[in-house]
């Protein structure tokens, strides 16, 4: 892709997201846990009257997760509702990174040997100067 990406950290790993998908970043995460729901769902959040389903991105990506207490402190990214997805989606992150300008030729498809993270969730890998930015494919990730 070309354009701006938002980077964020989860378990000290850096991920990226097309900034056009992001509705907002909320630092005050106040959600209610829903008993008997999918383990990947953290709970529901009231975002100015809209109900947002918060996901446990770490779990979906197969990263080890710390206990919930720490997550309560963290921030969350809320995605724009897509026309075919009437429900609002958000997910917890540890901290936000920067907004990075990305050029097309920095991008590459996910290398074949990516095992640590479920490879299909990664849309592409962006080769930044110092590190690699894993761009998430939100449609695949949250197609619960």
């Amino acid at each position, binding site marked *: 892709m070309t354009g701006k990406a938002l980077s964020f950290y989860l378990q000290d790993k850096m991920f990226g997201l097309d900034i056009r998908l992001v509705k907002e970043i909320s630092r005050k995460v106040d959600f*209610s846990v829903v008993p*008997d729901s999918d383990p990947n769902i953290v709970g529901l959040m009231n975002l100015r009257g809209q109900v947002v389903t918060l996901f446990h991105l770490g779990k979906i990506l197969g990263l080890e997760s710390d206990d919930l207490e720490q997550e309560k402190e963290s921030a969350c990214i809320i995605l724009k509702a897509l026309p075919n997805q009437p429900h609002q989606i958000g997910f917890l992150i540890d901290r936000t990174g920067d907004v990075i300008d990305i050029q097309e030729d920095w991008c590459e498809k996910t290398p074949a040997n990516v095992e640590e993270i479920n490879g299909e969730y990664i849309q592409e890998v962006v080769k930044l100067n110092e590190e690699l930015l894993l761009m998430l494919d939100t449609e695949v990730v949250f197609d619960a």
Partner: protein
Amino acid sequence: MIHNEEFINEFIEEAESHLQMVETGLLAMEEGKMNKENINNIFRSIHSIKGTAGFFGLDRIVELAHIMENLLGEVRNEKIQPDSVMVDLLLTGNDQLKAMVDDVFNSHEYDVSKLVESMSNLMEGKEATSNDEAQKKESETTVTSTETHETVLTINSKQREQIEDAKKHGHYLYRVKIGINKDIGAKEISPIRFFKKIQSVGEIVDSYTDISDIKSLDSVMDADVYFSFVFTTVLEKKLLPIALDIEDDTIEELNLDEQLSKELITTLSEDEESSKETEETENDVTEEAEVHFEEEQDEPNQEETLEEVTESQEIQSSASAKKPAAVSTVEDSVRVHVSLLNDLLNLASEMVLGRNQLLRNIEEHRKEISGLDAILQNIDRVTTELQEKVMQTRMQPVGNVFNKMPRVIRDLSKKLGKEVELNIEGSHVELDKSIIESLSDPLTHLIRNAVDHGLESPDKRKKSGKTPSGQVDLKAYHESGYVHIDIVDDGAGIDAEKIKNKALEKGLVSESDLKNMSDQEILQLLMMPGFSTAEKITDVSGRGVGMDVVKTNIEKLGGTIEITTKLGEGTTFRMILPLTLAIIPSLIVEVDEFKFALPQVNLQEMVRLKTGDETKKIEYVHNAQVLRLRGKLLPIVHLGKVLGLESHKIKEINQEIDDITRILVLKVGSKRFGLVVDHIYDEEEILVKPLPKFFKNCQCYSGVTIMGDGKTAMILDPEGIVAKASLRFMDEQTKASEREASAQLNELKEMQNMLIFKCSGEETFGIDLSLVSRVEEINSDSIDHIGNKEYIQHRGEALRVVRPESYLPVTKKDNNPRKLYVIIPKLVKNPIGIIIEKIHDTIMTSIKLNQEDIKGKGLLGSTIINDKIVLLINIYELFEMVSPEEYENQSLKISSNDRTILLAEDTPFFARLTKNYLEWAGYHVISVMNGQEALDALKEKPVDLVLSDIQMPVMDGLELVRNIRKDPDLAALPVVALTSMTSEKDREMGKEAGFDFYEFKLDKATILSTLKNAFEMRGETV
């Protein structure tokens, strides 16, 4: 895409409503409603469709609409008498139009030629049969271009007449030619709106699109399409550009006088270049305007025009009722897009939430800031009203769905050879738009069911002594905050045996299951997937869509469906639907620190169990927990356990800490169970938000809401909980719970709905809502004084109003507020309004009357509601004090004073009220609380008459009267039922059980005269 999707959608929406009107109109026509109004309506609707379809170049639609219009035109001119063949044809045409409108982008692929052919055959056939020359002349003339030989414009006598008529009213005739893209597109108004705009200033005579260059619909976007209107209006030419918001060079004025035809021809033919003179045949000279593409007009046409004038005058006089052409109607409604309404509803709901949060958070500071209280109250009130109004914008009458049913019935009855009479009631009852929309399919299905499966064939009906034509009733009405829709047939009823056999055959149940099933349960089998009772599958039913789909659809709407049937007499399907889906009353409960909202629809009662209380405790059947509730076992489910909350188990063990088990008794359909929760909080009106799809696997929830504290809470779905907890309701339990449920219902009915209010003094008053017809807000200056009496205008009549504090032994103050309320009572002759100053609330409560403490004429007694003493007004006494001449009807009193009436009534309030006026009339009254007590009393004391409530605990009124009739000593005793359930059915049941009379509880005058009658019936004078 034709021009703009929105325009097309608007066309579709518009056309659909027209088509519906046509259908209704045609059906009415078939039933013999041949009035001009009806036919004109149909004609206009079809014409509108033709007109607008022309804009988009929807040839096929235009073609079909055109021929239908012509046919209808003949009917309108009374040249053809419509018969059922013709109505059939028109209905088929209407259906075809519907199909094409629905599939508008492919509409040109539909083949309408057959229909068009049969319609024109019909028209010609009709004309052929009548050899009258004049009729032949009625056939219309088409205008053809000599070059392309295409039909461009038709002027028939009707249009001619219209122009002539308009002329008489000082109209001008204009033609406007506009480019669809250039003029309409640029101004972002749709062609339909433009069409309407013209209609608002005048009457359209004809309109057509020049679509000859357009090869496909898509090319409309590129090449501009010119559209021409011919219309009449009173506006002068220079005003038109302003009125229609168009360039003035697009407007041409046409001459209305003798040159009419010529002008029409020349101007309309301008677009077509190089028109040639056409030969005219003499026999074509008719009263029709012959329109040719000619630069110059020749003689015959002139003559013809003159002829026409006289002709049309005759037509005019014969159709004298015709409206003047220029009726500029003031529109009192505006078309608003549904999405806007949805947004409004959401916003209003958000506002309710916001208000709740505001009120909650500011509660402590209310006193600190002076004036805050009033502001908050105002916001509170405005918000509530706003929300209600917005809600109302979405309300639509069920008639929108109901009016589709006559057609369904008509087609069915033809197909099945059954005569069916459909009786529709309550079309005005309103429901939320979304519910109305989803109601069509289930309702159609149930109606089909009723006709196909329910009603017998005419022969069979005759054999069983019924009228050959079957009756299907479709009724909608309000019932305790819900809308009921009944589909009643007087057919054969449902044979439980047949259902059993079928269910066995299909392997839906086992034989042993069946043995244990109650009748209701067997009926419920009907709604299991894969069930169909029709002996043979017709194309009417048995299409794989069964009652199970109906049931699911209704449940999706938050409603339920009930079946009652009587073999040989008929079946009733009752749909019980919420008024709206958006906001529901619910109870907030908590388990393990999770809060949930429980819809109150399902809630029957709440039970608290104290540990250590041996009389009420949870017992065990093996491992299952049950509760004895009024002698029946109620299965107990722990919400925490169902939701898999782990810490719940620990809590169960440590239950001693809490000491109290809270059980909510829930009812889902006929199933009842107890749900254990940790805490029960307030009732809250919650805003239902759809369940995010990610929770679709969680059976226990039906939605999400945001509570007053801003947190989200899940809305519990009792049906889901039953499934999740895998509760299996067996026969005994269901039967028991059925009985319980009906007892419960009775109890609920005996709860009283009290209106709590204040007059000028400090006292709080209460009046039973069943005595109130309505409460109106009035201005203090709208009270007129005549003598020392006060009157207000109410529904155009003078209504006397009184201030109760002037008559009752209570305090009185001079507050002189501007805003007052008037309670208008019902069930009294010549009502008098009661002026009050403040409405507190309406409360559903069972009243405990404090017996003797506060007494006074006009007061029934007092009770405590929410820690306040509430004085209950006896309106009969109050009115007697106000206007003794009218209300003290001495004729109702009895002369002797040795009559003893046994009054069986469990509600203290009604007992007191009734006893009060019975004693006033001169009877001795013995009061008892239920049927059993009444029977006991009858054994002890001589009684002259029994007056009994129907719903009572221990033994109800029906049972009481049966017992009385059985007892040889008592059998002749007059027994009068006193009830709040006065439907015909209830009445019948009452009479069947043995009541002599059946009266509404609160109708004092009627009851007293009934009592006299009851005594007289036995030959006694009183």
